[in-house]
């Protein structure tokens, strides 16, 4: 059986992480920005699982569960904050959320 080399997983994860960073910086919609953070977290999860396989260590896999749980909690709070923002501003465009500045 041919196995996929570990480097492939790591490169894929790194690319996903970079796409997440780029989207975070480029996108203007709050929900899309939030999605790009989730993409970065999933890239981290992939890295953990790949390394857990390399080291034959279960702790990497367990870390992934906690990352998912925490991401869910963060999503609950984040979406609530987004709703609060929309109620006061009627917009989800981050460029228009600019009352606080120098």
């Amino acid at each position, binding site marked *: 059986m041919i196995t996929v080399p570990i480097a492939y997983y*790591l490169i894929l994860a790194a690319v996903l*992480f970079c796409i*997440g960073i780029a989207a*975070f910086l480029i996108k203007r919609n*709050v929900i899309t*920005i*939030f999605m790009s*953070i989730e993409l*970065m*977290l999933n*890239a*981290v999860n992939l*890295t*953990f699982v*790949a*390394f*857990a396989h*390399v*080291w034959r*260590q279960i*702790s*990497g896999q*367990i*870390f992934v569960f*906690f*990352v998912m749980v*925490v991401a869910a*909690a*963060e999503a609950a*709070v*984040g979406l609530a*904050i*987004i709703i*609060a*923002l929309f*109620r*006061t*501003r009627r917009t989800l465009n981050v460029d228009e*959320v600019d*009352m*606080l*500045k*120098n």
Partner: protein
Amino acid sequence: MSTNLLALLPELILTLTAILVMLLEPLLAVGASRKPLGWLAILGSLGSGVAALFQLRVVHALGTLTGFYGTIQVDAFSIFFHLLIASIVVTTLLASLDYFPPDQISHAGEYFALVLFGATGMMFMTSSAELLMVFIGLEISSISTYILAGFRKGRATASESAIKYFLLGSFATAFFLYGIALCFGATGSTTIAGIGAGLAATKTPLFGWLAVGMVLIGLGFKVSAAPFHVWTPDVYQGAPAPVVGLMSTAPKAAAFAVLLRFLFEAAPTDRHHWAPLIAIMAVASMTIGNLGALLQSDAKRLLAYSSIAHAGYLLVAFTAPEPLAVSTACFYTAAYAAMNVGAFVVLTQLSGFDERLRTIDDLTGLALRRPALAAFLAFFLLSLIGIPFTGGFFGKFYVFSAAVHSGYTWLAIVGLANSGLACFYYLRLLTALYARPTTDTIGDAPTPHCLSIPAGLALIATAAATLLLGILPNRILSLTQRAAPSTVAQCVMQK
């Protein structure tokens, strides 16, 4: 009592009190005062401080406490931060007891509970020896503070502050996590000790450097060190004043504790690689913070930039070798916490929930209207400048002398130049307090009301702490030095 429970005692007390507050809240009538819940929360955080002192006695008698298969490690270092966080929380809660106006009073219970939950997370961060626990603690504290930042619901600036904090905070968390993943990849372990052993023996140092760099970025965001500081002024300006006092000190103290443990225990062999990086971050934070503050007219925004600068001063301590770095950083954290929380307690009392007084113009002539509050604020500002007989002076003194001792004389000089620069904006605010008010500000000045007893207690406590750190720095320094060798001892044991 089992060691597991004993190791977690302060966190357990805080969590249980927070849950109790949340359970009792619905039993109170709508519109009824939530002050009893506030006092309960204060009692709980005092209890956790007492528990931390109890742990200190046990640690003195029996050595480092470990629990939960070594993931929790209670030593003098973590107990120092537990006590610091517990005192910050008590002060914040005292200052916020009368913060809520009658129409907002029904949310006060949640507020008290969230402050306690956040403190639990921060304490977890300082006492965990496993990066998984650090991550969970970091998230518990972050998620609570995201909500607290936007607590003045319905105000447009509050939700903006919360969303900016939330997005940039989660972005930073992703970097921190990626750093942990790379540490795990380089060493096969997620415990700080295991990573330290692994990184010392690794054949692929590039992975290790990348990992340490990522962790540095993630924690750099949390302590608002430049160039990861952009969120700080906006978030502090929009968040409620007592919350800013809390979140500019307690989570930063916890993040600095993690940074100290991580850098000095997991990556001591790479010190010559990361120490220059830290020095650059320190210079950038001090300079950007102080230059930014010169341009501000909003008091909270000014203090936000000043907190960036203070993060820079604190990072200077990291260039010293371990025992010196740990003790000076601990001392500076305590001094900064005392004076900064104090300044925000004053702002809380002045501006109230509606933030009536915000800008330096609003504060002009305050000494005539509220002499006591103005005097307290002036004292905290003098300490932030670093005038002798205040905690701020000895904090800076120890930090800069640590830099000189470890061969970073240029860094100490840059720091001193920055302290001089900082005088300008602190003194601008200070002279405004004692200046003659212009006629129009008297007209729309709110009616002065008496200082409430809890807020007065909070002010006296912070002022006393600032003064004590300035008059008897040796006693506190010897305490923090006791915190330092315990981490060294563990390092030696592992080798």
